[in-house]
């Protein structure tokens, strides 16, 4: 099967039937596919949450949580490359592939990198919320310099923060 041989409208229809995570992976396979087709899809709003020891991004129905702490209930699904980010992923709910978690030290940079990537490949997707909590109980934290720079560049692009 040659996906790119389908008429434009049919291919758009196919992409609209895909899960967001598959769409993100598919968009990384070919520039033409990304520019002419996946960029026309709106998988739903983007939500980014930053906490002191975790960060999460939700796009459409798909959510990835970056956490410093492991969870006993998560099911390992191995290394996953999603856009510019490769993670050792865990699935949070059995029989569905829409909520992932990964345990990493720097939780904010990959989350923001992925958010930026999603906004680039899905220009129609709105950044619907950005929650940034710098205090957690009595614990405070500061962003790493690399994350600060990424955040600064991102805010210039989207003028949101």
């Amino acid at each position: 099967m040659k996906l790119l041989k389908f008429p434009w409208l049919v291919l758009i229809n196919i992409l609209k039937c895909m899960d967001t995570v598959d769409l993100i992976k598919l968009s990384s396979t070919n520039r033409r596919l990304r520019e002419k087709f996946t960029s026309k899809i709106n998988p739903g709003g983007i939500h980014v949450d930053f906490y002191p020891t975790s960060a999460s991004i939700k796009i459409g129905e798909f959510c990835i949580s970056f956490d410093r702490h492991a969870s006993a209930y998560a099911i390992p699904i191995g290394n996953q490359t999603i856009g510019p980010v490769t993670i050792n992923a865990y699935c949070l709910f059995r029989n569905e592939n829409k909520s992932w978690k990964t345990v990493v030290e720097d939780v904010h940079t990959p989350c923001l990198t992925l958010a930026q990537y999603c906004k680039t490949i899905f220009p129609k997707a709105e950044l619907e919320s950005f929650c940034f909590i710098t205090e957690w109980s009595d614990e405070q934290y500061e962003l790493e310099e690399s994350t600060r720079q990424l955040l600064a560049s991102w805010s210039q692009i989207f003028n949101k923060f």
Partner: protein
Amino acid sequence: MSVEPEVPIVQVEEVRENPVLYKIISSDNHVFTISEHAVKLSKTLWDLITNLGLTAENALDNPIPVENVNGKNMETIVQFCERHKYDEEEPEYTNYIREFVLPEWDRQLLSIDNEELFQLILATNYLDIQKLMDYCCRVIGDMAKDKTPEELRIIYGIPTDAEDDALERSASDSPGPSG
């Protein structure tokens, strides 16, 4: 004591058993019979029937030639339309990713090899059958589940950017009709 109404009650099933039938001829000259309710799922065929002025009386005497669809695909399409002819109309989809479950009967019907599925989609697109198009697209979309980008490239026959560029270059280098 209740009074029974004297209005005759027509059972829905009775109506269903006496449908208006139309004949369709595929590109390879196979003849199919399809009911009016089923043929209405195809906007192209229904427009054709309306424009030709076919009625219950003359429908079977005037087969409709469909030159872009072969017998194999037409058989699948007729089966699908007959199966879904009494389905309720579905609401318009939003711009977002579509969430719907493909019924098992339809999944079985569409369990065909990729090339056949490709041809069926082109036929469905030509005949403008939205529901079958959605179901075919769901089957193709589901092939992406749990795959890596490299696996997706193989399943969907997606060239690399370098291959795309090479194709583009060779197309621009080749002489045009006058050259």
